[in-house]
C-alpha cells in the first residue's frame, strides 16, 4: 500500500505542491507549511505548519523569522466562554514522539508587518527556531483566503 501511494505520488509529481514537502531537522519532521492569501499588506498574514518529533527528547518551537514580515510571532487562538482571543505563545511544545500542528483555530504564526501582499500561489521562506534542534528553513505555500489546509496525498 505504501509503495502504491509512493508511486502514485511520483507520477503526480509533475506539479509539486510546496506545502506537501517534508523538511527534516534531526529528529524533527516538518511538513504542511502553508499560509493564506491576504488582501493588501496592512492585514497580518498567518503561518501554519505540522511538526513531528520522532526522537526521544522533548523539543519546543521558540520563534519564527521570515523576510515576508517585519514582526512575525507565535500566537495561540484560545476560546474562553465562547470568546476567541489570540495570546502570544512564548514557546510551542513539541514533545518526544508526538506531532504538533500550527493549524486554524489553535497555534499559528502571526505575520505582522507584511512586506508585501501574500497572493495565492506565492511562496516565502520561514525560519523555525527550536530550543534543542536549532534552526531550519521551510518554504511556505500561500493558499487561498478560503483554504483550510493543503491537499496532500499523505494527509489522513
Amino acid at each position, binding site marked *: 500500500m505504501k509503495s502504491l501511494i509512493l508511486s502514485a505520488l511520483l507520477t503526480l509529481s509533475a506539479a509539486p505542491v510546496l506545502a506537501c514537502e517534508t523538511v527534516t531537522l534531526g529528529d524533527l519532521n516538518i511538513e504542511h507549511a502553508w499560509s*493564506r*492569501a*491576504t*488582501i493588501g499588506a*496592512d*492585514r*497580518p*498574514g*498567518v503561518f501554519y505548519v505540522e511538526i513531528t518529533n520522532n526522537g526521544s527528547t522533548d523539543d519546543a518551537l521558540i520563534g519564527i523569522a521570515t523576510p515576508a514580515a517585519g*514582526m512575525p*510571532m507565535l*500566537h495561540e*487562538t*484560545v*476560546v*474562553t*466562554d*465562547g*470568546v*476567541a*482571543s*489570540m495570546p502570544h505563545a512564548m514557546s510551542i511544545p513539541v514533545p518526544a514522539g508526538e506531532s504538533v*500542528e500550527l*493549524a*486554524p*483555530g*489553535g497555534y*499559528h504564526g*502571526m*505575520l*505582522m508587518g507584511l512586506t508585501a501582499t501574500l497572493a495565492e500561489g506565492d511562496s516565502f521562506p520561514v525560519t523555525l527556531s527550536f530550543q534543542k534542534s536549532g534552526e531550519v528553513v521551510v518554504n511556505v505555500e500561500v493558499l*487561498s*483566503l*478560503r*483554504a*483550510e*489546509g493543503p491537499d496532500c496525498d499523505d*494527509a*489522513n
Partner: protein
Amino acid sequence: MRRRQLILGLGGASGALAFTLGLGWWQSRGRAQPPAALLPLPIGEMGFALTNHRGEPVRPADWIGRPTMAFFGFTWCPDVCPTTLSDISGWLGELGPDADRLNTVFITVDPERDTQQVLADYLANFDPRITGLTGSLAEVERAVAGFRARFEKVPRDGDYTMDHTAGVFLFRADGRFASIIDYHEDRRFALPKIRRVLT
C-alpha cells in the same frame, strides 16, 4: 477534519458551554429553561441599524421571515474569521439551493477598519450568500448586546486586535433563537443544526 479533532481539547470547556446552550436547550424545551440572560434575544426584540456591504440599510425586522445564521468577526483577523467564513461557505455549499432561504450575516466588531468597501472586498473570497454588516461603533455594540455576545479591542504590538464571540448563531424564521455552532465544535453537528432552522 483532522485539524478540528486535534484542537477539540483546547475549546473543550467553551465547547461544552455552547453545546449546552445549543443542543441542550432544544432537548430541554418544555422542561426547565436556562436563565434567559444567557440567550440571545429574539431578533424581533433586537434593535440596531447597520449597513450591509452593498450599502443597503439593515434593521433586525428585515430578518423576520427567513431563518438567520449570524456571526461576529473582523477582516484583520488572520485565523478565526477566515476559518469560520470558510466553514460557513462550505456549509452553504453542502446545503445547496436550500441555503438560499437562509439570511447569513457576518457582523464586524471592528467598524473602524471594516468599512462597507473593505467588507465587500473581503467577502468576495467567500460564498456570495454571506452578507457583511458594518456601521457606527454604537450600533455594532447594540447588535452585539442583542446577541448577548461580547467583543473587546485589545492593543497589541503598536496595533490592535479584537477579541470576540466566535460561535455561529442560528435563529428560526420567526426570529426565535435556535442554537449556536461553537467554533471548535465537530463539523458534523453544524449541518443538522442549520437544517433544523430551515424546516
